Every structure is written in C-alpha cells, then in structure tokens.
C-alpha cells in the first residue's frame, strides 16, 4: 500500500524554482533516504510533504487521500478539516528538535495525544513510558529539555512524534545539530524503527547510514531527482556524474 505519493511537486521562492517537478512514492514499511548537497531542495521537499510549506503545483496524497490536488498546474489544498485529518498520518522530527522547553519530557510526549487526539490520558501515559523505555530515557520522564543532551532531546522528539501513532515519519537531518558522538545514538534508534517496519523518509548527510538503513535512496540536486534506486546502486555504484561527484567527497 502506498502511504505517501507526491506527483509533479513544484515550489518556487521569489521566482527561484527550488523544486522542479518532483515525484516519489513511499510504500508501507519502506525507508527512503533523500541525499544531496545543500540547496538541492531536499529540505523544501520534506517541508512541502509535511505541509509546513505550500506547494505551487502537484499532488500530495496520503493513504489515497488528497491533501493537495493539481488543477491545471496549480496546487489546490483540501479543506481545513480534511487537512487536519491528513495531518494525523505523518510525524516529523526536526533538525533542532523543537521540543517545548516549558514542558517536561513526559508532557512533551503526552500533550498532543491527549489534547489534540483526545485520547485517554492513562493509556497515553503508559504508551509514553513504553516509548521512553525504547529510547533509553525511562528515568528522564520528569526532566526538562534543557537538562538533556542534544542526543537525548532528539530521542525525546522522536518519541513525541511516535506517540501520535503516525503512518509515516519524516526526519529532517536528524543528526545535523549533534556532534559525531551523539549521532550514533540517533541512528541506532532509527535503525530499530526500521527493524519494526516503520515507514520513514529521512533527509540526511550520513551516507553510510543512508546506505545501511534505507531501502530506497533518492539523490537530489538543483531541485530535481537526479538518481534514485536501491542504496547499493545509488550510493555504492552511482551512474550519474553529479551523484558520483557528490559522493566522492564521502568516500574518504
């Protein structure tokens, strides 16, 4: 089953085309990595997919439900009510975590399921502790974000996203704000989610990680998908010149 489908996505900022006709689809349980140089449009693509940016043209479809429909080259968004429903299908983990600093770790995780999804508080609490256990933060439930390391904060933000029970989870350079020592703990968490067949789209600069965890790698440059395929082909044996040039810097 297709969880996410993007057709002919276009986006420009002040006349500069950042995304030129991007299409991709993500099946249930698939892990897709998006790689590419800075300014290639990969973060913008992720922000369009999570509706933090509006697309100029193209379709955005979650589980067969249209969030955005292309009408003669113009993007038409679904009604606010439909969008709210679709919003529940995906979660996003930010580069800078964006935890709520005035909430404890537990409240960061519980608040949206309780107050947005209106789920039972006790049930949510139990799930939150399960998630914290999984993230190795069971004993930090009462801590505040500023008392945690960057790696711990990022794990909390992953738990916060998972608590909403999304069908698909997006990661926007989840390790870019972390030093190399802390990067490993986040990658481990994402790997464990992949092992549980969580559907994920990961924008990353960690080539080795993309190769190890992804089923499908997309290389973007200049607002287009230059090359895509299984990691063995795209990362280990790229065919396109631009992909080769980009990856050669990571081989050393």
């Amino acid at each position, binding site marked *: 089953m297709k969880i996410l489908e993007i057709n002919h996505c276009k986006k420009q900022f002040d006349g500069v085309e950042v995304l030129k006709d991007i299409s991709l689809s993500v099946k249930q349980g698939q892990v897709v990595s998006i790689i590419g140089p800075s300014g290639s449009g990969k973060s913008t693509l992720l922000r369009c997919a*999570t*509706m*933090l940016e509006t697309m100029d043209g193209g379709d955005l479809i979650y589980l067969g439900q249209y969030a955005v429909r292309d009408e003669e080259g113009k993007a038409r968004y679904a009604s606010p009510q439909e969008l*709210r429903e679709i*919003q*529940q299908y*995906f*979660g*996003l983990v*930010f580069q*800078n975590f*964006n*935890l*709520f*600093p*005035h909430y404890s770790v537990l409240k960061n995780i519980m*608040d*949206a399921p309780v*107050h*947005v*999804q209106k789920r039972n508080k006790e049930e949510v609490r139990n799930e939150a502790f399960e998630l914290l256990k999984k993230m190795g933060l069971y004993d930090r439930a009462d801590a*505040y*974000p*500023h008392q945690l390391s960057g790696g711990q904060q990022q794990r909390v933000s992953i738990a*916060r*996203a998972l608590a*909403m029970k999304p069908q698909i989870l997006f990661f926007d350079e989840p390790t870019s704000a972390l030093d190399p020592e802390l990067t490993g703990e986040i990658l481990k968490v994402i790997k464990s989610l992949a092992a549980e067949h969580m559907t994920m789209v990961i924008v990353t600069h960690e080539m080795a990680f993309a190769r190890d965890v992804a089923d499908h790698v997309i290389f973007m440059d200049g607002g287009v998908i230059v090359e895509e395929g299984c990691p063995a082909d795209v990362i280990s044996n790229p065919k396109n010149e631009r992909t080769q040039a980009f990856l050669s810097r990571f081989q050393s």
Partner: protein
Amino acid sequence: MAMMLSQLGEGMIKTCGIFFWTLLFSLPLGMIVAFGRMAKNPLLRNFTRLYIAVMRGTPLMLQLFVVYFGPFYLFGWKLSTSWRFFAVIIGFVLNYAAYFAEIYRSGIQSMPVGQYEAAKVLGYNKNQTFFKIVLPQVIKRILPSITNEVITLVKDTSLAFAIAYSEMFTAAKEIAAASKSMTALFVAGVFYFIFNLLVDFLMGKLEKKLDYYH
C-alpha cells in the same frame, strides 16, 4: 499628625485603586493591541501603530486632560464628579495598554519559528498553539520588561494629580502646603518606595518560579 496620616491613608487607597484597575484592564487590552499591531490587515495594523505612536509619543498628563475634559469640550457633555475617577482609569489603561502591547509583541516575535512548526505538525490548532505553547514562553521572556512598566506605573499614579483626583500625591501636596512642612511629601515618597520594593519582590518571585526551564 494623625489627621495627616488619615488623609494620606485615603490617598493611598485611591493610589492603589488606580494601580490595580489599570493593570487589570491594560494587561489584557495590551494583548489585543499587540495582535492588532501584528495583524495581516494593513488598515488594522496601521491604525494600531498610530494608536501606539500617539500613546507613547505624548505626555500621559496631557492624555488625562483629554479624557477628562474631552467630553465637555468636544460634545458639551457635563459629566458628574465621579467621572474624574473613570477618566483617570481610562487614561491610564489606554496609555499602559500601548506600552504593554509593544512588550507582548517583542516577546511573541522573539519566539523561534520552530515552536510554531512543531505545534502545527503535532496538530495543535491556533488557539492551542498560542495559549499552550507560545504564551507561557512569552510571559517568561517579557517578565523583566513588565516589571519595569509596573514600577513606572506605581510612580505614574501621581499624575492623576493633574486632574485633581485626590490620590496620595495630591493629598500629600495639599497637606504640605497647608502645614508648611515637607513631612507629608516625605511620607508619600516612602510609600511609593515601599510599594515598589513590594512589586520588585513579587515579580522576582514570579521570575524565580518560571526559572525551571530555559
């Protein structure tokens, strides 16, 4: 002496009255003004801008005159003596709301956009985002500036003297003139000073209470 203290005491009650009524109305009104100042609608935004500019750009004393005498000079209305009290409160509230609005705006605009984005992705609606996520953090950020304004307000209450509202400063000045002695003014000074020590102490406590996160 006892006579003086009882007269000053009455003034003190009125001074406290101006203080509390002003805060009670200007703090929420300031929030509304701040939203007007940040509105997308250019008409509303520019109107609010003008309002803030006038309130901050002209003396509060003059504004009190306008509110107090305006109804008579402009419309020929003869208002009862109790109007004096309402004129004082309206004048102070309108003036302080402008200052508070700018403090709120500075706080709201200093919020990292990531907080809004995280809230949006988690499905919070606009009200929830503002009241649960943004406002608590804004309050923490602006508390020192609010304290500043509140301390100024304690002293500014004496401007009600301009329209002969008999708060403490007015009383103190009358007593000083009648008794040819500075004592009453000195007592008044001590009162303002202690009042502000108290404000400083309470606001400090509040800041401490919000110190549990960064």
